[in-house]
């Protein structure tokens, strides 16, 4: 079979190294998550207790089910805490290594900025900036390729959503110049 001999290979030069030091262990994160959930349960539980968690003549009041859900959540979180503290003796598994965290932040921070930009520049311009910037700075792809791709992408999105499917997206000053 000659055609299956051709290989597809994609390199990932800035891949996270496998020996990168750990930032936190899974157990630490678990404990934090359970504590947050516990706080969440207390907060919502209090709100539901305030709005009435009793049993009226015709059945439960509006806070009844959510209140007991909060009790369940608090219970499960406490149980989770107990389990997490119980496994102290075992070898801790890594939650995320430093390299991995760096890569995750490489996506998360631009995404956050994109959401911010979207409010002033509108979705299409913000997406142009995001795609081009990400390809250039994270992917290290040539400028012309990045710009061309992002422009085409933003254009296709605009035509698909705004023109063809009538889905209204936030727009900024640049779209206004073209009268859309």
């Amino acid at each position, binding site marked *: 079979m000659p055609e299956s001999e051709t290989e*597809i290979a*994609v390199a990932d030069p800035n891949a996270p190294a496998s020996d990168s030091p750990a930032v936190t262990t899974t157990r630490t994160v678990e404990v934090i998550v359970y504590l947050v959930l516990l706080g969440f349960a207390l907060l919502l539980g209090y709100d539901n207790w305030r709005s009435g968690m009793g049993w009226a003549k015709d059945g439960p009041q509006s806070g009844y089910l959510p209140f007991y859900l909060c009790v369940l959540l608090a219970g499960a979180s406490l149980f989770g805490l107990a389990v997490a503290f119980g496994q102290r003796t075992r070898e801790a598994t890594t939650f995320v290594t430093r390299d991995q965290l760096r890569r995750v932040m490489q996506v998360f921070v631009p995404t956050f900025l994109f959401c911010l930009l979207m409010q002033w520049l509108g979705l299409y311009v913000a997406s142009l900036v995001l795609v081009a910037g990400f390809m250039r700075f994270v992917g290290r792809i040539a400028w012309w390729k990045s710009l061309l791709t992002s422009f085409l*992408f933003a254009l296709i999105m605009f035509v698909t959503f705004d023109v063809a499917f009538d889905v209204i997206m936030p727009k900024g000053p640049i779209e206004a110049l073209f009268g859309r």
Partner: protein
Amino acid sequence: MEALNLLLHGFAVLLTWKIMMMMMIGLVLGIFVGVLPGLGGPNGVAILLPLTFTMDPTTAIVMLSCIYWGALFGGAITSILFNIPGEAWSVATTFDGYPMAQQGKAAEALTAAFTSSFIGSLVAVLLITFLAPRIASFALKFGPPEFFAVYLLTFCSFVGLGREAKHKTLISMVVGLLLAAVGMDTVSGQLRMTFGFDPLLRGVNFLVAVIGLFGISEILLTMEERLALRGHAAAISLRVVLKVWKEMPRYWVTLLRSSAIGCWLGITPGGAIAASFMGYNLAKRFSKDPGSFGKGRIEGVFAPETAAHASGTSALLPMLALGIPGSGTAAILLGGLMVWGLNPGPLLFVEHKDFVWGLIASMYLGNVVGLVLVLTTVPIFAAVLRVPFAAIAPMIVVSCAIGAFAIQNAMFDVWLMLLFGVVGYVFKKIGIPLAPFTLALVLGNRCEDAFRLSMIGAGGDLRVFWSNGLVGSITTLAFTLLFWPLIGRIFEGAGRLLRPVKT
């Protein structure tokens, strides 16, 4: 044979240029979604959902379900050629699929995977065609107590039968139910858990949460991994296809067994991943030569793929008949139904015949067209993987943002999506399952309504859930499943048979 007539009617609904075109677009997008790293069935459907907001419901569901079929087909491509399972349920396909590709039999493996997926979903669709209308017409007699009992059964079976630690499943489900309750209380009109914050009045939108949990968090997770890949390019020739098809009838037992397992696990909530492993393990166990599995045996591709597709498809059965999704993707489709203004549940079969039968007919047609499409275009889609992830990731982010914004035209939802992205990332890494959350968020309100309506009807008497044979047995079954792990310990011996074979 009323079902057949209605099915023919469904085909008649489908055969318009517009729907056929949307179907092709859906399939192509779906295969893309399945092939791309960091995207899979549920994410793809969730992200592409906003495309359908302005369509009529039938066109919309046909397109969305075709995205789903496409994603299922696409997942097999990367599993076999690159040893990268696009989805948890295609992990089992890599066991024998990748060795086959290494031996230069990639085309055979791909043909086997596509064909067996096709057979699996065909069996499941047949089941839906003939079983779903009956269940729906039976469920028409359900009152609020019965519906609450069915919801309870769904939730309890997730906790009792799920593979994750029980408290983690419980947390995921309870958080989902709580978030579903945020906003206006539908029975008394009181505000709950909004803390005077206006955007929360509408509540937490299900689709926004899903786009964050499955779209954004999946990109974060994908970035963590080494994205380099190496694999085989393959084209499928007609000769290979015919050769595999000629071999196929020999494995009819495996195909049938896997289809049955898939259908069963698909209907019970949370079983899609288990299905492919169980299909594989059982094929291995009953094989005359179990040692040859994992070394590139074609049966090892047939078994998990058939089961995975059968379960993926049959997960739509409870969604159509009862309004209860059997899988994450089915839950998203259910969310779609609500956006298009349909009320999921047994009444769908009475009030929206065009919609239901159009969807069922599209399952037949979509799978046939999908099979032909993947068999002919594999090289193109495999080449998609050459596109660097640095170009794909931001595009996925933009699509997610469009999806989240479009649902309610609210910027708040975009931020919520980002928050759910982080939550999904952390939850996945510490092993809190997301499927129960999804299910609870989409069913939460209706579940609470059912409970409170039955309480109002019964004057606050909890015994209403055991007031007749039907509701009583469903409620009892729910509690049995909830405590199944405890009960199961008693039947330890029977359980041992289903456990995975040590490899």
